[in-house]
């Protein structure tokens, strides 16, 4: 599903250049649930942003679902993001003046799905994350866990090939974190490929594979026995 070879990325910081990713080789098969771990500054978020085409690499190859991702302009990147990727952010990134349902329906708008179908689908996905009765509420009226579940529903709504989650539990207490992870696991059980960036051990343990990043290189890549989050809920 994801194929990465010799990926490099550096940031210019005034006169200094900060080499963040120093040649990453990495691949993910369909249906995997991968945790990317590392301390802050290890390059894990940068990697995820490049995978999500929110940022571009300096050099290296990236193939997503058989499509080489190269020479991206903004329009092309937008198309790919819409077609291939769903995002879950630490800070939820819901649009604050739109109701939960409108937020979930937004990626479908960019897929040119008509209005009625959009609303049906959005309600359907809200139901799957257990928030159907909150459909008309604004994000400000929802708790952190609820917001993240709306965000997950939104990421799912576009039916992407890969879900990218950047510290999805970073802003949540542990009980809500486990609820969110339970949801992510269930989505993965349905066959969706999911990448989760986290620095929390217990969250990583709930994935099927853990990739450790340190100073811009992969130091460890192991399959783990998945801990089911439902045990904690």
């Amino acid at each position: 599903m994801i194929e990465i070879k010799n990926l490099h990325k550096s940031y210019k910081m005034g006169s200094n250049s900060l080499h963040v990713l120093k040649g990453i080789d990495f691949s993910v098969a369909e249906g995997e649930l991968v945790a990317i771990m590392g301390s802050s500054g290890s390059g894990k978020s940068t990697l995820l942003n490049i995978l999500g085409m929110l940022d571009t690499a300096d050099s290296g190859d990236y193939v997503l679902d058989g499509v080489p991702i190269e020479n991206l302009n903004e329009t092309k990147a937008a198309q790919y993001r819409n077609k291939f990727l769903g995002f879950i952010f630490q800070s939820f990134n819901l649009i604050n003046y739109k109701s939960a349902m409108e937020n979930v329906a937004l990626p479908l708008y960019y897929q040119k799905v008509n209005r009625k179908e959009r609303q049906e689908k959005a309600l359907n996905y809200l139901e799957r994350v257990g928030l159907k009765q909150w459909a008309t509420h604004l994000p400000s009226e929802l708790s952190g866990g609820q917001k993240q579940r709306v965000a997950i529903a939104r990421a799912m709504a576009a039916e992407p090939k890969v879900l990218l989650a950047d510290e999805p539990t970073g802003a949540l207490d542990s009980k809500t974190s486990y609820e969110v992870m339970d949801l992510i696991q269930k989505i993965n059980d349905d066959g969706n490929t999911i990448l989760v960036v986290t620095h929390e051990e217990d969250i990583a343990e709930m994935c099927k594979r853990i990739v450790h990043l340190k100073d811009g290189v992969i130091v460890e890549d192991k399959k783990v026995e998945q801990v089911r989050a439902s045990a904690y809920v």
Partner: protein
Amino acid sequence: MFDIERWQEIFDTIRKNKLRTFLTGLSVASGIFILVILLGFGQGMQNGIDKEFSSDASNMIGVWTQVTTKEYKGLNPGRVIQLRDENYDFLEERHAGELEYKSPMYRVFNTSILYKNESGSYSIWGSSPDFQQLENAFMSQGRFLNFNDERQKAKVVVISNKIHRELLGSMENPIGEYLEISGLSFQIIGVYGDVGGDREEEKIYMPVSTAQGVFNGADRLNNMFFTLKPAATFEESLAESERFTEEMTTYLKQAHMVAPDDLSAINTFNTLENVQRFHNLSSGIRIFFWFVGICTIIAGIVGVSNVMLIIVKERTKEIGIRKALGAKPISVIGLILHEAIFVTAVFGFGGLIFSMGLLELLGPMVEVDYVVNPSIDFNVALITVFLLIFAGALAGFFPAYRAARIQPIIALRDE
């Protein structure tokens, strides 16, 4: 263009940001408002000046003479130049095709006029029948002089409403009564009024031939007045009348042996030149109004672009989210432009309708000298609004373009 979802997006943002939208709109609406009012008053001044000059025939050319100041062909300076009938006849004949109204003038000031026991002192103006048009006098009773009176040297006079009041106050209808002037009896054939008011009603008209005969004028004239047939445009009329004045002066100088460069012997005036001066003044004022109006519009545009910049800044994160979800740059630009155009259009037309309504309603009530019925050409106003909308779109475009270019990762990081 018609995309329900996008319209809803726009109404959503507008509803969420009522004050901001209102302030943007206000700067647009007030820009249009001020422009329309200014242009309206510019037009009002034009109307006012036109009206002010409609009281006398506005293309009248007159001539009078003084003494020569230059020696010419052996003749000493200081010679008195006297206009004569033959001068008038020559000009009348030579320019017959282009003259509209014409009149010679033999004038006697402070003549004592008697009616029974009443007496008063007025000017006698010996003139031709055309003089009514030249003076823009209107008849209250009876008639003005005609060519028969002139040919027969009839002893008839036309008096003014003022003289009627002062000498024949008891008479409802003075037509047919006789006035005594210089020991002779003159029959009143008409009473005139002048829009210029009492100041213009101090004179008694009689045929020029009669006046010359009664007051020993022989063939002498004090003045000659002419108006030319109006040309298609003001500029052409002005050129025509300047050419006529020139030709007339040249002829008179030759006829009276006046040096061609003697500026004081033959004097002319041309009311059109005065009108021209006022036209220049009023178009100068109009240009100034336009300038101020356009500056106001520019201020409005700057206001709009300023607000658009703030809007884009405020929505950077939202734009980042939208882009992460698959919004193409063009759709981001479209969203922001659409809002900018919508707000400018609504408030622009609002300002237009409000200000034009105000002009329509209050315009006819304005009663100030030199300002009559301020109004504005609807097309000009409409063009201005479209210009403003276009400018609003332009003002929105650059911030929108910048926003669309921001990398989503940077936009998302924005708090």
